[in-house]
């Protein structure tokens, strides 16, 4: 599996991580090594094997429809890097 620079850049953007030009090469090599390592899974025939969905043999548990939370804007905003009038604030988005 070869992972070219363009792919590294695409993944970095998908993951929203800026990769400086001087980091890109080392990262490319590391990612390539890891992919080469995991590719040995290809040796195993898994055609009739179902993927694992959960290690715990139980069904999803449901909760009742009751309002038990909320009304804690102070807590929700307590760690916000930037807030205004009860909102989180981020750089302006143009749609």
């Amino acid at each position, binding site marked *: 599996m070869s992972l070219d620079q363009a792919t590294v850049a695409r993944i970095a953007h998908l993951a929203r991580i800026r990769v400086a030009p001087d980091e890109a090469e080392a990262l490319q090599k590391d990612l390539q090594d890891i992919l080469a390592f995991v590719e040995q899974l290809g040796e195993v025939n898994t055609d009739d094997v179902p993927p694992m969905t959960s290690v715990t043999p139980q069904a*999803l548990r449901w909760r009742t429809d009751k*309002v038990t939370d*909320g009304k804690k804007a102070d807590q*929700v905003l307590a760690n916000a890097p930037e807030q*205004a009038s*009860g909102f989180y*604030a981020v*750089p302006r988005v143009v*749609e």
Partner: protein
Amino acid sequence: MTTHPVLKGDTGDWEMVIGLEVHAQVISEAKLFSGSATEFGSAPNSQVSLVDAAMPGMLPVINEKCIEQAVRTGLGLKAEINKFSVFDRKNYFYADLPQGYQISQYLQPIVGKGEIVLDLPDGETRTVGITRLHLEQDAGKSLHDQDPTRTFVDLNRSGVALMEIVSEPDLRGPEEAAAYLRKLRAILRYLGTCDGNMEEGSMRCDVNISVRKVGDNEYGTRCEVKNVNSIRYVMAAIDYEARRQIDHIEDGGTVVQETRLWDTGRGETRPMRDKEEAHDYRYFPDPDLLPLEFDDAFIDGIRATLPELPDEKKERFVTHYGLSVYDAGVLVAERARADFYEAVVSGGPNGRRDPKICANWVITELFGALNKGGHDIDESPITADQLGGLVDLITDDTISGRIAKDVFAEMLETGHDAAAIVDAKGLRQVTDTGAIEGEIDTVLAANQDKVAEYKGGKQKLFGFFVGQVMKATQGKANPKLVNEILRSKLDG
């Protein structure tokens, strides 16, 4: 077979191919995966739990009501219910998506294929396929207009349960799209699974649209138009977008598959500027949740509580009450209207009023008046009992149909009972044959020439005499008696 609308182009006739993705907010007290409230219009970030804000280490736990509502809706859409379904994460970054992913259902949705029967304006019906329905989380709200340099984020909506209902690309024009949305909304309201309020955003619509030459079997390249939040705008967006695509192709261009925004102010669609460049959502099963499973008993329990839905109700109104398909359709379009109508019919001295007279008064008079004022049935100043009282006065000949209209107008105005108005204004019909005979004699005596003309063969003067009598009695004479007595005097 219904013929589809055709758009004329320079190179020939074009057909629209439309599929709708409706996001319907589930009616529930609490959110899909957290215990905070779903109410609309609270202070910013006040209906947010630490789960909704995606604080580190927070985990989702599913709300059973939302599962029930999805199954209920699936049953209402005559759809396959999947007893095993999976929640996936749809990964993308946005300021109002706190987790950096939306919990949704991708490969294994809770509801599979179903259908909706459209009631088209010409009285025809057409069946449109439903591809699937799945449960997912709503995002928060980004406000771009509060500050010149910043976007504000409110997470009150974050985590509210939505049903995404996807239609097959079976719709062929704005009218059909509108009929689809109206019918879907009616079904959701009947079921009580979504309030269908497009203005408040509890029902939102994305439109997938492509065009092709009439006769082509291949689909064209489609565009997705987002942010279309009323039926009127859906129709306008389809008109605009279809025409744009046709013009573009006829000018030698090709349609690019893209997401476009409906600009309500300009009445046009435009490409989204801040596109997520690479649409790569990296779906995978949410490891914080196990697969969703339930048994037939759960489905049957919900099925047992399903209300009568519009199509069945319409059928019953036609067969049971003898209404026209059109009238039945108007009545069942909203559950509240149908209920109102049935309340009118099922009252009265015999516990059953004449269904056709009732339908006429409900549809023509009451709906007409309400529509004029822009009111819903639940805002009607006249109750079903009161309207029934008016119908009773007509059927037992206390007042004539003409007087009834005046009484109805008075009822709308004052909210008083029909009988009270009739009594207070002395509108009771004159059924005393002696009194009517006297009035008729006076009229005939005063119009000897006309009587002679009538007897000479001018039969249509009969109406003139009736009118004169009614005028003399201020409309209170029983028209049937007037007719009978006049007939015996003139023809006898």
